[in-house]
C-alpha cells in the first residue's frame, strides 16, 4: 500500500509508525520460532546466547546436542563410529525410536484420515446430501473439542474395550490421531471441491465411464492438491500430538512429542532445542509443499490470483 502524494504530514508519520508496528508484530510471530535454531548449536548447556556466540567465536558453537540425540539411549555410545555404532544408534537411541514410532503412527493415521475424509468430502459436496449441516458439524468437531476431553474419553473407552489386548501395536493412538486429522482433510478437500463443475462427472458418465473410472480419471486429478494438503495437515496433526499419546499410549509407545514433553517437564536440556530445530525445518518443508500445491490447485481450476 503506497502512500498517496497528497497525504498530510500527520498521515505520513502514522503510515511509517504503522509499518513499524506491523514489523514488530511479524517479529513477534516469527522470532520465537527462529531463535531456537542458533541456540541449538550452543556449546554450553544454557538457553541463552553466550558471549562467545555473540562474538561469533567458533568455539561457542557445537553440534553436541545433535550428537546427544543420536547417542542418548545407546548401549555403547563410546564405541568407534563404524557400522556397529550406527546400527546401535538405529536400534537403541531413544530419539531415533521415538521418531520411528511417530512416523509409523503418523503414516497410518494419515492414510486412514485421508481415505475416509476424501470419500466423505465427495459426498458432502453434493447438493443433494441430506442433513449436510449437522453431519459437517459432527465431522469437524474433533478440531473444536478440547484435546483433554478427547483424551479422557478415549482413555475410558479403550480400557473398557481392552484395545491393548488386541495385539495390534499403536492401534489406539492411530485411530485417535486419524480422528483428530479428519477435520483438516474434510476442510481442505471440500474447499477444492467448491466450484467443482459437476457437469464434468456427468460428461464422463455419458461417455460410458463407470463411477470409479470417473473418480480416478476426472475428479481425482482435480482435487488431488486438496487431498495432499489435507493429508499433510493430518500427518502434522498426528506428528505433533502429545496429550492422547500420554493418556492412551503404552509405555513403549514413545513418540517425538511425548519424548519432548517428558524432556521439558523433567529437565529441559538444549537437546530439546535441537529436536525443535529439526521440527522447524520439517514444518518449513511442509509449508512450502502446501503453498505450491495451493497454487497448482488454483491454476488447475482456472482461478487466477485476485
Amino acid at each position, binding site marked *: 500500500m503506497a502512500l498517496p502524494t497528497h497525504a498530510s504530514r500527520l498521515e505520513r508519520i502514522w503510515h511509517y509508525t504503522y509499518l513499524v508496528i506491523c514489523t514488530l508484530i511479524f517479529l*513477534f510471530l516469527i522470532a520465537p520460532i527462529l531463535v531456537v535454531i542458533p541456540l541449538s548449536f550452543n556449546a554450553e548447556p544454557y538457553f541463552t546466547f553466550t558471549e562467545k556466540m555473540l562474538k561469533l567465536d567458533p568455539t561457542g558453537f557445537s553440534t553436541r546436542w545433535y550428537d546427544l540425540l543420536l547417542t542418548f539411549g545407546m548401549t555403547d555410545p563410546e564405541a568407534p563410529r563404524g557400522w556397529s555404532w550406527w546400527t546401535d544408534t538405529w536400534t537403541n537411541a531413544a530419539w531415533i525410536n521415538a521418531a520411528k514410532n511417530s512416523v509409523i503412527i503418523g503414516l497410518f493415521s494419515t492414510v486412514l484420515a485421508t481415505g475416509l475424509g476424501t470419500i466423505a468430502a465427495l459426498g458432502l459436496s453434493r447438493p443433494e446430501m441430506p442433513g449436510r449441516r449437522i453431519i*459437517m458439524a*459432527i465431522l469437524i468437531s474433533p478440531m473444536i473439542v478440547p484435546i483433554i*476431553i478427547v483424551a479422557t474419553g478415549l482413555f475410558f473407552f479403550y480400557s473398557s474395550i481392552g484395545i491393548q489386548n488386541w495385539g495390534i501395536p499403536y492401534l489406539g493412538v492411530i485411530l485417535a490421531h486419524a480422528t483428530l486429522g479428519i477435520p483438516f482433510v474434510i476442510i481442505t478437500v*471440500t474447499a477444492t471441491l467448491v466450484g467443482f463443475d459437476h457437469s464434468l462427472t456427468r460428461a464422463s458418465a455419458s461417455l460410458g465411464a463407470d463411477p470409479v473410472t470417473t473418480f480416478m480419471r476426472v475428479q481425482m486429478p482435480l482435487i488431488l492438491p486438496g487431498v495432499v494438503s489435507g493429508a499433510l495437515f493430518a500427518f502434522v496433526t498426528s*506428528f505433533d500430538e502429545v496429550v492422547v499419546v500420554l493418556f492412551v499410549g503404552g509405555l513403549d509407545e514413545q513418540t517425538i512429542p511425548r519424548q519432548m514433553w517428558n524432556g521439558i517437564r523433567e529437565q529441559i536440556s538444549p537437546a530439546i532445542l535441537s529436536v525443535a530445530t529439526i521440527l522447524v525445518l520439517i514444518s518449513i518443508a511442509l509449508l512450502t509443499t502446501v503453498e505450491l500445491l495451493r497454487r497448482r490447485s488454483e491454476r488447475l481450476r482456472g482461478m487466477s490470483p485476485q
Partner: protein
Amino acid sequence: MSDATLSPAAMADTMPEQLTTADGKPLKQALIRAQSHARRRAFLLVAPLLAFILLTFVMPIGQMLHRSVHNEGFTWHEDVASGERTRIMANLSQWFDQNELGTEPGEAAFAALAADLVVLREVKAAGQAGTRINYERSGSRSMFTKAARRAQRLEAPFKEAIVDLDEDWLDPDLWRVMRDASSSYTANFYLAALDRTKDADGNVTPVNENRQVYVKLFQRTLFLSIVITFMTFILAYPIAHLLATLPLAKSNLLMILVLLPFWTSLLVRTTSWMVLLQSQGVVNDALVSTGILADDNRLEMMYNQAGTLIAMTHILLPFMVLPLYSVMRPINPSYVRAARSLGATSWTAFRRVYFPQTVPGIGAGALLVFILAVGYYITPALVGGADGQLISNLIAFHMQNSLNWSLAAALAALLLGGILLLYWLYDRLVGIDNLKLG
C-alpha cells in the same frame, strides 16, 4: 392472439395429463426416485467416516459423560483379575430405602453397616468404597479400611462397637454421603464441580470457602481466554490489514510469516517461549545487558499467568489473522477513497467505512480463538506455573493424580457444554464451511 404464440393455459390444454418418461413411468415419480437415489448415494459416501467418528469420538465422549453421573464405587465391586462383579453395601442400601433422609441411624443401620463391612473385607473393596465416600467427605477412607479390617470381630450391639472404632461414624453428614453414594447414579459430582455440596439434610450449600477452587478456575479460564482473544485481535488487525492491502505477490510472501508458526509444532513454539522468557533466558538477558533492567531484578515471565498469556497469544494469533485477512482482502479500496473525497479524515473513513466491513471477520476470528483458548492444555501445563493453569489442566489433574474420574468427567462435561454452545454459535454466525486453513 396469433397462432404462433400459445398462452400457458392453452399450452396446458394441449399437453397430456401427466408427463411420462420414455418407459411410461410418471415423470414426477421418476424424478423423486432419482433424487432419493442421489441422496442415498451421497449419504453412502459419508457413512463410513460418520460411523468412524461416532465410534472413535462421539461414543468415547458420551461414555465419559455417563461417568460424570454414574459411579459404582459404593455399589458394585469388580474383581480386576476375574472380572467378577459383586454387589457391595447391599444391606445399608436397603436400610436407606426403608428410612428417610434425616433418620437417626440406629442399631438396625449399624447392623447393616457391619454386615456390609464383612463383605467389603471378603472382596477387598474397603478402599474402593472408602474412596467413593472420601470424594465428598474427606477423611472417610481410613474409617472404612480400618472398620473393614476389624469387621469379623464386630459383635452386637453394632452401633457401640463401630462407634468405638471411630466417633466419626455418628456424623450425620457421613450418613448423608453414604445414602447418596448407595445409588450408582448421582448429580453430586456436578455439585462438586460447581463448588457446591449437600448438608446433612440434603440441601445444596456452597462448600467451605478455602475449598472453593472450581468456580474460580472457570472464571480464570474465561478471563484469560477473553484477554488472549483481545490481544490476538489487537495484534492481528494491523498485519491482516497490511496483508490485505499489499499486492498479492508481496502479501503471499509475508503470509509465510503467519503460516510458518501455524505449521510449527505446538511443543516447539511452547519450548521457544520457555527459552525466551526464563529468568536466565534471552529476553531477560537482552534487557539486562542493554541496561534496562538490573541483574537482580529480572522479570518473572514464566510459570505464571504472564507466561500463559504471552505464549497462547502467539500460538493462537494465526487463527485470528486468517479470518480477518479473508474478510479484508475483497474489500474494495474505492469505498475508503470515496469517503476521503467526501471530506472524511482518514480516521473517520477507517472508523465509519472500513472497520464496519471487517466486523464479520473479527467475529469469526474471535469466536475461533476463544473456543480454542478455553480448552487449552499443553501450553498452560508447561509455562503456566500455579496461577496460569486453566480448567483443562485441572481435568488432567483429576484424571492422573487424584484419580477422581467422576469429578474429572463432570468438569469436562461443563467445559464441553460451553464449547459446544460456542461452536453452535460459530456455525450460526460464520458457518463451518467458511473455516479456512491458510
